[in-house]
């Protein structure tokens, strides 16, 4: 029960119900689809770069409160970061949810996204929290492949 009330907190509810990040991004440089076939959750994530910095990001799609809020909060966290910083944050978030990273100091770089820490105790919901993060991981991998990096 404690995990539940901590997961469905104000921040997460706000981002899931009415996110300002939920919109089409005009002139996006990159776009990637994310899908959890078992539950039907689906997002389209879009990103605009300014050199090496994530200038803007947005998403459209549908799904449960956890998947939608996780996407929106991820966008808040990653906007304005360099691609290398973003990759580090993505790795840390996935590590936190999979309980591979527990060090508080290390988790600080997640900013608001640390709100999902308790999802690591709810195995049935892990895939909801990770949907957006796996989607951007895939987007960046594809980008690196195309750049021959």
């Amino acid at each position, binding site marked *: *029960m404690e*995990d*539940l009330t901590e*997961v*469905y907190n104000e921040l997460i509810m706000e981002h899931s119900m009415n996110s300002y990040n939920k919109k089409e991004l005009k002139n996006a440089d990159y776009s990637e689809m994310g899908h959890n076939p078992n*539950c*039907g959750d689906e997002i389209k994530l879009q990103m605009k770069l300014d050199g090496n910095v994530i200038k803007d990001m947005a998403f459209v799609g549908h*799904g*449960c*409160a*956890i998947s939608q809020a996780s996407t929106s909060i991820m966008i808040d966290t990653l906007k304005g970061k360099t691609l290398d910083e973003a990759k580090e944050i993505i790795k840390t978030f996935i590590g936190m949810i999979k309980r591979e990273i527990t060090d508080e100091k290390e988790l600080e770089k997640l900013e608001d996204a640390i709100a999902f820490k308790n999802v690591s105790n*709810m195995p*049935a*919901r892990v895939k*909801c929290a990770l949907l957006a993060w796996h989607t951007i991981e895939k987007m960046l991998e594809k980008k690196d492949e195309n750049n021959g990096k």
Partner: protein
Amino acid sequence: MNIEDIRKDFPILENRKIAYLDNGATTQKPLPVLERIDEFYKKYNANVHRGAYSLSVVASEMYENVRAKIAKFVNARFPEEIIFSKNATESLNLIAYSYGLENLKKDDEIVISIMEHHSNLVPWQKVSKVTGSKLNYMYINNNFEIADEEIETKITDKTKIVGITHVSNALGTINNIEKIVKYAHKKGAVVVVDAAQSIPHMKIDVQKLDADFLVFSGHKMLAPLGIGVLYGKREILNKMNPFIMGGDMIEYVYEQETTFAPLPNKFEAGTQNIEGVIGLDAAIDYIEKIGYDKIQEIEKNLTLYARNKLSKLDFIELYLTPNEENHSSVISFNIKGVHPHDVASILDGEGVCVRSRKPLRTTSYEISWNRFNM
């Protein structure tokens, strides 16, 4: 037997404050089923139809006795009309591959309902693609039922196979199988009935339904996982080719050719799930001990109670037929504005196990229950 007595038979519920309402996905197993499996391994384990030693002979007898018992349980004419499979899904695939692929031609039609489980839908897509036949759907009306008119419009002279679920796993609607079978037979089609969601709750009589094929899973009716049944009319099964090849389903094997064993072995290649068969035997005993009348009485009370309580909550949308006599014990509902997975997580926090899903392309989710939940 009252509900408290029945609950005591389920070790998983012991000292646990949970309401297990996901019986549509799988049921919990009562002690007599678990004990029978334990006893089988301790006293009787051997492969069937193989050894000339007494242990194997006894195991074979036990295995064949269950077949005869299931034939009686569903009122089949002959034991060899009962084929053991892995589950309803495998039974349906057997029909699709061994009957559908070999009998359908271009421009023939397959008709299924929009409320079918994926297991009675995806195999027919395959048959349709390979044979060039057309896959058509019977849709539901505002009462979440298939109207007579829909049956008579969709099943035509070109229809060769009709696939229909007896009870919908998403809506709890009880379909009028006898009516569909009658009409389909008039048009010359064979009918495949998915009884996975009905046989745990109501008496099945394959002769009364006059179904050509009928399938179900053991694990949804208190038996172990991994055992299922295919019933087929003997004259149809006899004409069909085997689905899976291997040991035990053969008569003579030459280097380039094989002749196949007669029914039912023709469809039971390889070592079978003997433990599952023995467990299914015990599950049928358990159901018969309580009796379908009593099961229906308990379920009806629970279902009416739930319909009544849920319909008073204005934040809930119910997806069920208003005709109580056409409704089994599955209840699908939607909490407006809340995603079903969030609802399921929150209910889980209160010890209530429900299924969350998106049936029929509407966001909703179902509770389904069975005789031992409260």
